[in-house]
């Protein structure tokens, strides 16, 4: 054996292990497919399906008014992409069954005196009946209705000159002027899918070796436990990085996501993030003995991590104790960085504010994994 410094020897051993891991993942057609196809499919699937906008709300219209104004208002509704008119009703009795059966989510009832009141300068009333069973959609629909009605009355006031326009509140969404939810979702997916891939690879890595019977052979080599763990983290982290950047690129190419910040900061964030999630993966690996157990355990980590990250619902809306829990979730920080780099030019200092908690979580998780792993070998 050649005599180098122990550190150089250790690095060389790790390098051989990393090389073997890459080869093993790459030569396995199944693991190769799992690495490439599902994340890309999920990116497109989520980006298209999981939008928060509400389109094509089925709308039933009962217009009891004969006037021109009421027809204009109905036209405003049907012209909006948010609503699709599914029925023109003639009596109020028809409303109930339609809503009950879910054929219409919303019914718009314009009373007989609508046009008259409007022309007389009084404020007319309209009735909106909404299916409250789908509360989210209903709330969105109500806000759209408010928009449409407000615009209608403004327009009417302007053209008829009857009432001077009231002061208006104009909302403008920063960073995402069109409130395109893909802009919100895709940077989130970059972080989330990367986490899933990296966690699963590491969580299964040792269990797979145990099942194959190659693990003991590995343990009798001069490789020390921390070296084995590093050898398992590096390939997963490198693949995760590739995955994350590919998904980001696809987001830019297919969903026109801007890149307003510094990509290097994204890379830095991803690197620290991957250190922490792969360490969680290794903890799972140390605690489980079969691939099946590892898979289940990985999902027990991934699901809460996604829910408590702010990926779908803002962390600020969560109860205080739960918000406190999210502080231990690396995905929470990575989401901020990812959205920050893509959608705004997040300054380096702010990126670092999100990087250091991930670094602490990562070091803690890696130490825990090493401890669990060594304990299991005793």
């Amino acid at each position: 054996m050649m005599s180098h410094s122990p550190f150089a020897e250790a690095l060389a051993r790790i390098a051989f292990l990393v090389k073997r891991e890459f080869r093993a993942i790459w030569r396995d057609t199944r693991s190769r497919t799992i690495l490439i196809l599902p994340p890309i499919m999920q990116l497109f699937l989520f980006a298209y399906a999981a939008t928060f906008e509400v389109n094509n709300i089925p709308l039933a219209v009962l217009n009891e008014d004969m006037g021109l104004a009421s027809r204009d208002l109905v036209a405003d509704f049907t012209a909006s992409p948010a609503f699709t008119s599914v029925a023109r009703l003639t009596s109020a009795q028809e409303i109930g069954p339609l809503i009950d059966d879910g054929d219409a989510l919303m019914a718009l009832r314009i009373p007989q005196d609508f046009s008259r009141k409007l022309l007389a300068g009084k404020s007319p009333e309209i009735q909106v009946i909404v299916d409250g069973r789908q509360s989210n959609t209903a709330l969105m629909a109500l806000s759209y209705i408010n928009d449409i009605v407000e615009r209608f009355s403004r327009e009417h006031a302007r053209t008829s000159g009857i009432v001077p326009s009231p002061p208006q509140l104009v909302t403008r969404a920063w960073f995402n002027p069109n409130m395109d939810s893909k802009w919100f979702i895709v940077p989130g997916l970059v972080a989330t899918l990367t986490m899933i891939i990296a966690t699963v690879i590491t969580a299964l890595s040792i269990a797979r070796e145990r099942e194959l019977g190659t693990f003991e052979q590995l343990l009798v080599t001069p490789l020390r436990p921390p070296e084995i763990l590093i050898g398992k983290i590096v390939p997963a982290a490198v693949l995760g990085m590739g995955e994350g950047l590919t998904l980001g690129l696809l987001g830019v190419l297919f969903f026109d996501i801007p890149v307003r910040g510094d990509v290097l900061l994204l890379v830095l964030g991803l690197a620290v993030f991957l250190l922490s999630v792969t360490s969680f993966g290794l903890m799972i690996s140390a605690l489980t003995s079969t691939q099946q157990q590892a898979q289940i355990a990985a999902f027990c980590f991934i699901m809460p991590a996604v829910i408590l990250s702010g990926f779908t619902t803002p962390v600020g809306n969560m109860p205080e104790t739960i918000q406190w829990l999210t502080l231990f979730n690396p995905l929470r920080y990575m989401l901020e960085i990812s959205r920050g780099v893509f959608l705004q030019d997040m300054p380096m200092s702010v990126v670092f504010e999100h990087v250091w908690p991930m670094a602490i979580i990562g070091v803690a998780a890696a130490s825990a994994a090493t401890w669990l792993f060594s304990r299991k070998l005793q």
Partner: protein
Amino acid sequence: MPYGLFFKDLTKSFATPARHVTALKGVSGELKPGQITGLVGPDAAGKTTLVRLLAGLFDADSGEIGVTGGTERPRIAYMPQKFGLYEDLSVAENLALYADLNGLDRTTRERRFAELHRFTGLAPFGKRLAGQLSGGMKQKLGLACTLVVPPDILLLDEPSVGVDPLSRRELWTMVRSLQNTGIAVLWSTAYLDEAERCDHVILLHDGVVLDSGTPRDLNRLVDGRAWKAALPDDSSVAAKRDLQRAANQTRGVVDAQIQGRTLRVVMTEKDAAPDFASSQFAPLRQLTVKPTTPLFEDTYLAALRAKRGDEAPVAADIGTYNVQAGQNANGRPVIETRDLTRRFGAFTAVDRVSFSVKAGEIFGLLGPNGAGKSTTFKMLCGLLPPTDGTALVAGFDLGRSRADARSHIGYMAQKFAYYGLLTMRQNMEFAGGVYGLRGKLLVERLKDAVEEFDLGPYFDLPCGDLPLGIKQRMALACALLHSPSILFLDEPTSGVDPETRREFWARLNALADDGTTILITSHFLDEAEYCDRMVIIYRGKLIASGSPDEIKRAGGDETRTLNEAFIALIEDYDRATNNGVAA
């Protein structure tokens, strides 16, 4: 009228991603009622495929399977190699589950359970979880579950794998006792010595029937061809191996093996004693040969060679690959344990075990499964720290410098422990690399290994699909890449065919001659015959140590096999400590 089964010209092939495997190439035979038919052959001979075809799990590509006797469909019970016991259910719950699955009603069930309990001796363990049973007990429970409804035909796929000699004997007694019910039993096994217990034997090799008949008939092939010679009491280990080599080079010798202080020789011709008198090698001329009873292994080898028309002894001349090990070969101990102890919580797995192994020795670490043998082995390999006592391996104290000790040992696991999807080259690069071989040195060592172990044709193939014997050679080559002074082998030849085993042992002998110390663990006593010395570990304690002959003597009558001596020693121990009831 009791039922039997016959099968004719069965063929079956499977396609794996890498290649097409023909598991059976025209196999014919018969299971007679009231008989135990042994399906005997090494791993990958096609045994499992045949048993599954007979069980009706899948269809043959061609050929015929039929029932003899009886007028209705016979009830065929099949016990697969890994029987589907629910490890988290108790013994009684497992039995009840299989009774439910077979639709057994309450009253029949109670009677049948009582019979099965008597038959298996499992009654005291009804509440124990199946996962906590020993290998032998699991098999007994599996057999009981298979038999909840008395079958007409019983198919057992390697029931004795992973079962210690004691339990193996009990399993045989159990199945024997079924015979008077007239059922036909198929017992498949890779242990050749089990063939002698069968009524009828089908010898399977590589998807082909080598021979079939009663063990007596089959042994007739080698009648008068087996000879033995006692070696002088003071022969050193190296001297024995020189004798073996010289014997193998004698004209007419098919096979020469050292077993303890005996040299066993099988000849090509009947009644022709080996002509040692005219040997070039003086010590060989001193030996007097006597005829001896042939073993089934002799039969197997002879049948295999007759089929191939090849009578040459297995590679008697194997070079050495382990260049550096020889430097240590001065007979001082390279492994030494003193009161080695390992506790897991309150449980003492290894209890004050002391022994020493000299450089160049082939040393056996034997014992039933779960007796502490594997824990001892793991401590010596540097996988587990000892709780108490000391162990020195290659000059390193395992209490302090396990990682350093590990870099001086070679390890070959029982199961093939390399990534099947990677090529042999890639696996071997890794195996050498983690031990610190780099660049040109690594390339050279790989080149030498390929040459020495004859791996050239397979070097760039994914190694998962290679034949067992090649995998084994590769694993040995990997374990030797970094020139370790000690080689640890975990049940290295269990399940391989006798030819591969001989070749493997020839390599081990050559390595030992050059000073590599070899430590072998096994619960498979055939393997132990080849060791120079051994210890038997049982219930965490060292209960016997010495050469194979010394062990046989300790077990009682010298003529016994090591297997019988082993059982006797364990039973003596249990009687002496008066706790033979617990398992």
